[in-house]
């Protein structure tokens, strides 16, 4: 059998798997009856519904003709890696990881890290302009979030402020 629309087929697979997982998870809670719905009732219903819709999408991906086979195409792993990585680095530097003993470095350092890593996802990377951008954003964020909006965010590393 040939897949006629990759996008449809694989999204169908995704919906089916997630639907079954939710439905299966729902059965571990008390399902109850219509008049006395338990915590599992509604998620079980929805999980089954989603799995069925997923199957239908899969089926249409196998049968409905498309012009180009609607390929999913190449995944932009580089962009995924740097954007998500920038976000994670920001989290680690801002809050630290107490469980493994990484100290919090504060917002300013986290901003520099985020801007540099995120910029690597772009088509060109010039350190000078990236550093200028990071400085502008760091100053801007300090004024907007710390000074004007008074958000409770640690600004400097723990070992400086104590």
């Amino acid at each position, binding site marked *: 059998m040939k897949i006629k629309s990759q996008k449809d087929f694989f999204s169908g697979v995704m919906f089916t798997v997630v639907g079954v997982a939710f439905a299966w998870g729902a059965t571990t809670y008390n399902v109850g009856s219509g008049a*006395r*719905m338990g*915590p599992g009732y509604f998620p079980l219903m929805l999980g089954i519904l989603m799995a069925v*819709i997923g199957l239908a*999408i899969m089926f249409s991906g196998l049968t409905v003709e498309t012009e180009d086979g609607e390929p999913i*195409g190449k995944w932009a792993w580089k962009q995924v890696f740097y954007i998500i990585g920038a976000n*994670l680095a*920001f989290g680690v530097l801002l809050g630290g990881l107490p469980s493994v003993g990484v100290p919090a470095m504060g917002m300013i350092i986290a901003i520099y890290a985020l801007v540099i890593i995120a910029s690597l996802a772009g088509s060109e990377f010039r350190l000078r302009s990236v550093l200028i951008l990071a400085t502008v954003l760091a100053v801007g964020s300090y004024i907007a979030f710390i000074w004007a909006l008074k958000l409770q965010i640690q600004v400097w590393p723990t070992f400086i402020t104590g």
Partner: protein
Amino acid sequence: MDLVNNLTLGFGVAFTFTNLLYCLAGCILGTLIGVLPGIGPVATIAMLLPATYALPPVSALIMLAGIYYGAQYGGSTTAILVNLPGESSSVVTVIDGYQMARKGRAGPALAAAGLGSFFAGCVGTLILAAFAPPLTELAFKFGPAEYFSLMILGLIGAVVLASGSLLKAIAMIVLGLLMGLVGTDVNSGVARFSFDIPELTDGIGFVTIAMGVFGYGEIIANLSRPEHEREVFTAKVSGLFPTKEDFKRMLPAVLRGTSLGAALGILPGGGALLAAFAAYTIEKKTKLHPGEVPFGKGNIRGVAAPESANNAGAQTSFIPLLTLGIPPNAVMALMVGAMTIHNIQPGPQVMTSNPELFWGLIASMWIGNAMLIILNLPLIGMWIKLLSVPYKYLFPAIVLFCAIGVYSTNNNTFDIWMVAIFGFIGYSFFKLGCEPAPLLLGFILGPMMEENLRRALLLSRGDWIVFVTRPISAGLLAAALLLLVIVLLPAVKSKREEAFHEEEA
């Protein structure tokens, strides 16, 4: 006159210095993100939600609302000058707006968009003020069965209007509903689908979903596309004012766009995008006057009608939110979040329990529209300059604002890990051709739907027939069914597909 009294109260609230300031801030921000392609009101409002914690609720809502309707103004600027929709609701403005700019008529095009938007915004606000009270009366007659059916109608409406596959959109809604159920069940206290992670027992924060899917997901998708040359008509904006002939053509188009937009905005699932699209289709169906430029070649009506429609739609989509507490689109879903942050339960009781908030918000929209016309016509030059900011400076800033915004919601790094996961999920949706907006709607409505279903079935002792024996509920379900049948009719189906293809072009 009740309306006059109410509006006096509203203007009293809106005309304080702080509220005027936040209204202006919202409008400027809205125009800004409207002008910049690649960032929309959903992501912006999600980013700013945590920041509005410290504000009084009225000011917060005034500002967030300003962002939404402000974006409708800004979006047209980019559409006309750069041939890119700055905002999804300006997709059809691109077709004729850009052609006008190429012919050196960017000024009249911008003016048509701005004036049309202003007119439509004012009418939309007036409709909101006039229709909200009677609808609120109706809402008090609603029991759990009616609410459940109304949400079904709302979700079906959202699906019907989503572009792309109908089945996928329904699946996305169901996925959203399921994700909304993660966390502690209010009735039994059981923590569902939380995998023993303490942070998850409070449920998934919807700011994390919105930012992950709409913020990061879209940035990754944008970056993975090859950069194409942007041609900006900066120098050619001279002579803003349309000619007398232009006005004659514009006027009926603006009127048609406004009435259509206002009507479609109220519908569940409606709002700015659909309104703009429908208005353009209707204009195309009308006969061309002798000597008029055909559509697609720079017809001013092709700019005026959709731009009026998207503004009217943006304004009236507040009606279901403020009267029934049901968000008709993703932006309104975020407004529900904003209200909940400030301990206001959206729904018919808002008007009676917080009249100053309700009428203040409505009055602020008038003021906001007036500010926007000034921001967007005389000050157009400022926004054009902004268009020359390259994306490579823009996206790290967006990533940063998302990260800070997510963190400050709970001051907890856990949310930052969650948004990373949702960023990846959002990109996967993009790759699989699944539109994410229905997911967010489902996510907001999930817990509400479960609660109303539970109550309705408890009252009927488990008998599902209650949904069709109560007249209002039966009517709502019938409407939902009708919508589905209409879309599935072969004739409409092919038209719909054709329509959305055109939009992508």
